[in-house]
Structures are given as structure tokens and as C-alpha cells.
């Protein structure tokens, strides 16, 4: 048996059913949309986007089989259809397909005389009729406050409003009620007191002459919701809300690599290139070739069939394409093929938040593999360092959650390594370009300050830009220090000369050895011949001695024979 409390809990759960609005971002913030079968209040000052919100809500309903009625108190259906036609919403067709209905309610106080009691049953009848005509599940009342200015008896209106919201609930209609922002209250006529379930405030702030639209959920009964101010963007394709305030650090990490487009740079990065889905920062002073590295990365991405979104904050797309041609990178072809998309704006055009929303929206639409920000440092001019960092953190988190590789260039002041509002700590790979000035010329060097999770080179290389493209060459490292450019060339030439001289010396020495060897051999020959001469002489002497000995011996025998004439024969054998 279910206890009473459990039953209550179950009811509570069924109450939390939600209706998706189809507005990018809003469904994420509200964890599913607006409360189903209940009225929600959207309030905001004039031009804050209430009507657009409401219309998007209905258009999405029409798409997913939930027809809706737009009850307008201000604009005629014809005006609405015309207004939204320029915003990519074909309301006319939706109306013809009976997915959308209009109910235009016109009240002109001057035309109305009042005497005696009345109620607003006529309004109810009209709404019920319109709802039944198309089987509506959604309804928008924009803006019901017109009743207050149109009808004299406020007490009646208030009583009837209460009945109206009850009626929409009874009908199971998910309703949006719009309200003009009041001076002290959320709405001018205190509509919020009737709509207790969900209240959303739209706001248009102007800071430093730059307007930023914000959305805040003031109340959402029985549901978790984000409480922050979320920036949003209204443009020709509707409304985009940036749902991220800060994404967690739970994004996956890819082990795949993407080539940088520059062979030697790949080699410097563990031989493989950047990590897929990582964030790369390229810093350098003016003219060190940051954009060229970005362009090369763009080029190689598109070459392998990837899509690239290029946010340019300094140059126009045409200018970038032209300039990159000068180093033999043809970006125009990729733009033509639709693999590369440029989005060029001046940073000062919008507030930071709107930049962020724009990027979010474009990334969602284009689904790129690689995103380039050139240069990200220009955004710093728009806000305070804190704001910029907050924005970039959110942006990078967002990109990482999508496994999009992001390359940002950043202008750094010469001699100052970390000018980048601390964003370098957010980056996975940091490539630094420097200009080295000596002997009346300026040369570029490239090195990798960090690259998380790979064995990257710690060596400085010289970075050359020419008509043939980008080339990275070894710098000269020797006792004289690091040399680049013509100094390197002259040093190498000098070394070549020295080497020649050394080779000469070696040859000479070798010849000397040869000569000495010959000398020595000659000497040996002389000694040998001397020895032979001496040997001959000695042998001759020796022979003479032998002969003498024999002669002596013969003499002695002769003598003994003479002395012992009768002697024994035995001695003769001697």
C-alpha cells in the first residue's frame, strides 16, 4: 500500500512534466522547458524580446505536433506574419496547416462605454473557440495587460485574470503570458501574482554603450533551474541563449592528434601535432606570424575534409584570404567548398556576452572540427580582465565539451610573456613566436612553452615566412649563442671556411706522415744495407778464422805424426 506521503510525492513528480520551448539554450537552463499545462510569465521592457520568445515557443510546438494559439492584444496577425517572415519563420504556412492560430483582440477604450456589471466571458469564449479549432496545446497571451488600459474596471479584470489562468490550467494549456516591466514590480500590473509557476525576466542592459540581452529565471516552482543571468542573442534565426555559465571539467580527452600543417611544428609536438579537441594559444608580438600559423592549421584541416570556423576580429575574410595567398596558402578554395566559414566582427560591436552567444550559436550551427580566434586578445578591449577570463573559460569549456580543437592567437607585448589575462593556464598548448632583432634585422623564432600531455621540443626554431609558405629551420646554436637570419647564415659560412682550413691542415699533416714514413723506410733500408755489409765482413773474418784453425789443426797432426812415427794407428782417426 502506498502511503499518503508517497502518493503526494508521486503527484509532485507528475506535476514536473515540462514542455520544450525549442529555444536554443533555454531548455537546458530550465532542464526541459516550461512547466507543462501551466502558465509562465515572461516579463521585460519594451523590445526585450518577449514576442519573439513567445512566437518561437509556438513555432516549436507546431513542429512537434503541439499546435498553439497566439493571442495578440497589440499586433494584428498580418503584422505578426510580416514581422516574423523577415525572421525566418513562416507563420502563414503554419496557420494554413492549422498548427498555429491567431486571435487578435482589439480593445479601444474610447470606443467603449461601460454601464452595469460585466465579465470577460467573451474573451473566454473566443479563446476556447480558437483552442478547439486546432486542438491547441500551447497558448500565448501577448500582452494581456492591454486589458487594464482598455477596460475601465480593474477589479473585474483582476478577478477575470485569475479565472483565465485557472482556465488555461484546466484546459491543460502550456501558456506564455507576457508582461511589460514595471517600475518597482516585475510587471506593470502585477501579473506575477497570478502566475506562480514560472517567471522569466528578459532584460536589455547597456554598458559602455553596448547592449547586452540577459535572461534570468526568477522563479520556477518545483524545478531546479539555473539562477544566473544568461546572455542571449536575438537575430534573424531567432533566439539563442548561452546555457553555460561554467561547464564542469568532465569533458573527455582525446588521444588523437591533428596535424598543425607545418611539418617541423608537428615534429616539435611529439612528432604528431596538436591533440584533437585541445585548446592552443599562439602568442607573439605584432608581425610574428600568428595568423599564418592559424591559417596553416585551417588549411590542413580543410585539406583533410574537416570543417573550420574562423572568427576574425581584426581583418575581413577577403583580406585574410588575400594575405594568406602571399605565403602560398589558398584559403579561398575552402571557403568556396563550404569547409571554411569566416565570421568577422569588430570586438567593440557587441558586448562580451553577446560575442560569446554568437560564437556559441555559430558553432552549434556549423559544427566545425576546428575553431580559430584571431586574435582573441582583441576581445580584451571589450571588458574587464575578469569578465574576459570568465567568458573565455566558458568558451573553452564549451569547445572542449564538443571536442573541437580551438586555436587562438594573442598579441603579446614584447618582453612580457604572460599578457594574456591568465588565459594561458586554460590552454593546453602554448606556442610562442618571438621577434629577434640583431644586426639590423628582425627574425622570427618559434618555440613551445607548454603542451600538456606530450613530449614536446624545448628547442627554439627559426620561423620563416616566404612566398613558398612557412618554413621552420634550426637556429644556430654555438659558443656565440643563438643566431638567426643572416647572422645565422654568416656564422654558418664562417664555419664552413674554418672547416675548409682545418681540412687543409689535416691533409698537410697526413702528407707529412707519409713523408716521414718514407724517410723512415729509407733509413731502415740504409741500416739494413749497412748491416749486410758488416755481416759480410764478419763472415769473411769468421771463415778466415776457420781456415786458420784448420791449418793449425793440420799442422799439429803433421807434427804429431812426425813425433810419433811409430805411434798407434788409433790416433790417426782424429
Amino acid at each position, binding site marked *: 500500500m502506498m502511503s499518503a506521503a508517497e502518493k503526494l510525492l508521486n503527484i509532485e513528480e507528475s506535476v514536473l512534466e515540462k514542455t520544450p520551448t525549442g529555444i536554443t539554450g533555454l531548455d537546458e537552463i530550465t532542464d526541459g522547458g516550461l512547466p507543462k499545462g501551466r502558465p509562465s510569465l515572461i516579463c521585460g521592457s519594451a523590445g526585450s524580446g518577449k514576442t519573439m520568445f513567445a512566437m518561437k515557443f509556438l513555432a516549436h510546438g507546431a513542429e512537434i505536433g503541439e499546435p498553439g494559439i497566439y493571442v495578440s492584444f497589440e499586433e494584428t496577425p498580418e503584422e505578426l506574419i510580416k514581422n516574423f517572415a523577415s525572421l525566418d519563420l513562416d507563420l502563414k504556412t503554419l496557420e494554413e496547416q492549422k498548427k498555429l492560430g491567431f486571435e487578435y483582440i482589439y480593445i479601444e477604450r474610447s470606443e467603449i462605454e461601460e*454601464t452595469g456589471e460585466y465579465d470577460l466571458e*467573451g474573451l473566454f469564449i473566443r479563446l476556447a473557440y480558437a483552442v478547439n479549432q486546432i486542438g491547441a496545446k500551447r497558448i500565448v497571451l501577448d500582452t494581456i495587460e492591454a486589458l487594464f488600459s482598455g477596460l475601465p474596471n480593474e477589479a473585474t479584470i483582476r478577478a477575470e485574470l485569475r479565472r483565465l489562468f485557472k482556465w488555461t490550467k484546466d484546459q491543460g494549456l502550456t501558456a506564455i503570458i507576457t508582461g511589460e516591466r514595471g517600475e518597482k514590480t516585475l510587471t506593470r500590473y502585477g501579473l506575477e501574482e497570478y502566475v506562480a509557476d514560472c517567471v522569466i525576466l528578459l532584460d536589455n542592459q547597456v554598458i559602455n554603450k553596448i547592449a547586452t540581452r540577459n535572461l534570468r529565471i526568477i522563479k520556477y516552482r518545483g524545478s531546479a533551474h539555473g539562477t544566473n543571468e544568461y546572455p542571449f542573442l536575438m537575430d534573424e534565426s531567432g533566439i539563442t541563449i548561452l546555457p553555460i555559465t561554467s561547464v564542469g571539467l568532465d569533458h573527455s580527452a582525446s588521444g588523437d592528434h591533428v596535424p598543425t600543417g607545418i611539418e617541423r611544428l608537428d615534429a616539435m609536438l611529439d612528432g604528431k601535432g596538436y591533440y584533437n579537441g585541445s585548446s592552443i594559444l599562439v602568442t607573439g608580438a605584432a608581425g610574428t606570424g600568428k595568423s599564418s600559423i592559424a591559417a596553416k592549421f585551417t588549411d590542413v584541416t580543410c585539406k583533410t575534409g574537416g570543417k573550420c570556423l574562423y572568427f576574425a576580429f581584426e581583418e575581413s575574410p577577403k583580406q585574410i584570404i588575400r594575405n594568406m595567398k602571399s605565403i602560398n596558402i589558398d584559403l579561398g578554395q575552402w571557403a568556396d567548398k563550404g569547409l571554411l566559414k569566416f565570421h568577422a566582427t569588430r570586438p567593440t560591436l557587441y558586448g562580451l556576452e553577446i560575442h560569446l552567444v554568437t560564437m556559441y550559436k555559430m558553432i552549434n550551427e556549423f559544427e566545425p572540427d576546428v575553431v580559430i580566434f584571431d586574435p582573441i586578445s582583441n576581445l580584451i578591449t571589450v571588458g574587464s580582465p575578469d569578465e574576459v577570463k570568465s567568458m573565455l573559460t566558458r568558451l573553452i569549456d564549451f569547445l572542449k565539451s564538443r571536442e573541437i580543437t580551438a586555436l587562438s592567437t594573442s598579441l603579446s607585448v614584447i618582453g612580457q610573456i604572460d599578457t594574456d589575462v591568465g588565459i594561458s593556464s586554460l590552454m593546453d598548448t602554448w606556442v610562442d613566436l618571438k621577434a629577434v632583432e640583431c644586426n639590423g634585422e628582425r627574425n622570427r623564432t618559434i618555440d613551445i612553452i607548454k603542451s600538456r600531455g606530450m613530449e614536446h621540443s624545448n628547442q627554439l626554431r627559426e620561423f620563416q615566412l616566404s612566398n613558398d609558405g612557412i618554413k621552420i629551420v634550426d637556429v644556430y646554436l654555438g659558443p656565440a649563442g643563438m643566431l638567426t637570419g643572416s647572422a645565422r647564415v654568416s656564422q654558418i659560412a664562417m664555419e664552413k671556411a674554418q672547416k675548409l682550413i682545418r681540412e687543409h691542415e689535416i691533409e698537410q699533416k697526413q702528407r707529412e706522415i707519409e713523408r716521414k714514413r718514407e724517410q723512415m723506410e729509407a733509413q731502415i733500408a740504409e741500416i739494413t744495407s749497412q748491416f749486410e755489409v758488416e755481416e759480410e765482413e764478419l763472415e769473411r773474418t769468421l771463415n778466415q778464422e776457420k781456415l786458420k784453425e784448420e791449418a793449425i789443426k793440420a799442422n799439429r797432426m803433421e807434427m804429431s805424426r812426425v813425433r810419433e812415427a811409430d805411434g798407434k794407428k788409433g790416433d790417426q782417426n782424429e
Partner: protein
Amino acid sequence: MNDNSNLDEETEECPEFWELRLYVAGQTPKSIEAFANLKKIAETHLEGQYHIEVIDLMENPELAKGDQILALPTLVRKLPEPIKKIIGTLANEEKVLVGLDVRPSC
């Protein structure tokens, strides 16, 4: 009256016919009261010059849109033009006459 030099107000002819439409929603006390009041006023001031049509929006809800009806009961003066509207039970005769623009001179 045929003199052209006369003022506009005086040249304006009194309407010959009054077409009145009363919108109600069912036989509610308010509807009944409004109709009774209207009948009385019309009989008193527009005798033989009027026609009253009662429209029950419970039966014909689609008709509410045409005359932009919100409040009930609503009396609409269809003729003479321009269209005028009076909402409520028509309890105050004077106000109804002002609303219908019925002048005592007629």
C-alpha cells in the same frame, strides 16, 4: 434646414434606423438584465426605429471575433455608423443613451 449656411450640427440628420446587437453568453442573470434594460430604453427613445439582435456566444462562439467582443454582455450599435460598444448590464439609462449617441432632439 436646407440652408447651406447653417451649422453642421444642425444639418446632421437624425438617424432613421438603429440596428443594435446584444452579445450574451447563455441565459445568465446578467444577460437577462441587460436585455430587459435595452428593451426598455429602446422602446422609450427609439420606438419603431430599431432592431435588436441577440447573439448567444455559447451557441455561436465564432461570432465573437467579428465585433471584437471581450466583455459580456456587450451592446454593439451596428447602425448608424460608426460602431459603438457599451459593456455591462446597461443599468444606467443615461450612460446607455450617451453611448448610443441618442440625442433628445431626435
